[in-house]
């Protein structure tokens, strides 16, 4: 890779790199972390409490809804995704979406193999 001197200069000039997607490094404050922490503890208490009540088919649904909410606030705040570039946000979203696609496809296969014998 032979560069002309000027080209070399140009190519490696940090100021020349524009990255419009990238927000400047955002420092999440301890206050935000504390609020998320309190919410996570409250949700843990809530899910234990909800498990004691007989809600029939809604027991697992409520437990998973609370767990998903907890997971989302961990991802957004503890893992800083709320403050990251669009590239990172789409990457994270794509990962979970891909997992849901795989679950849906596998479940459709399972459900349709012996109809009624689930």
């Amino acid at each position: 890779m032979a560069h002309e001197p000027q080209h070399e200069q140009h190519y490696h000039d940090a100021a020349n790199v524009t990255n419009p997607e990238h927000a400047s490094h955002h420092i999440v404050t301890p206050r935000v972390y504390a609020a998320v922490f309190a919410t996570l503890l409250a949700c843990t208490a809530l899910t234990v409490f909800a498990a004691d009540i007989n809600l029939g088919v809604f027991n697992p649904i409520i437990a998973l809804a609370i767990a998903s909410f907890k997971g989302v606030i961990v991802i957004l705040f503890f893992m800083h995704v709320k403050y990251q570039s669009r590239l990172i946000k789409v990457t994270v979203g794509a990962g979970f979406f891909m997992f849901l696609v795989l679950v849906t496809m596998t479940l459709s296969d399972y459900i349709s193999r012996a109809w009624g014998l689930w």
Partner: protein
Amino acid sequence: MHSAIANPQADQAQQHEHVSLPQHRHHFATPEQQREAGSFGMWLFLLTEIMFFGGLFFAYLLFRNWYYDAFVTASNQLSVPLGAVNTAILITSGFFMALAVWAAEVRKKNLLVLFLVLTTLLGFAFLGIKADEYHEKYEKHHIPGASFDTSQFINPAAYGLSEKPLAPDAAQKTQLFFFLYFAMTGMHALHMVLGLGILFWLMIRAQRGDFSSGYVAPIENFGLYWHFVDIVWIFLFPLLYLINRHPLAH
């Protein structure tokens, strides 16, 4: 190009004198680009972890549906108070890890080391409680394999339990629940053990001052890993401990 590979240090010294930070790698144009590439790579790794744990979660979903009564009975052997306390411990550990990232960002070395130590201590507390739960399963012969004992599930009344008795063949299926329980919580615990090992390395480097001069990436990326392991547990706790408390009659 060949000279760059053979002697990157000399190459860097000759051509990139504007690079001031020692951690700034030669192939990134700016520190910001390097940081973003690091986060991106870490997230790609975590996506493979979602798929890995996702497979186990899916196996649990299907087999619970298949052997529902066995899964309900076996699941109710787990202690909800221990699981809940462990959830709180892990969330607190994650909170201190988040604070450690903040301490590195605002360049407070002593606070950073303190938060890393607290993260580690709570990680060990979690594993301690987990070990106690595993030991109880060992004593009751509820570890799948040759010495697995189904008598408690066939005749729960004799053990003072109010569970519905299972037929001997159905009682054998409780092994599948415990297999998945040990596989899922065991893989989760293995991730924590590896994380604790990395935490010691980070503590030593943090004490040396490596992460309190604007270089936050290792702390930040380890934080992503630690929080991911938290999220796995956030789902394991309700699925293994909570959702089978009120079995559906069918």
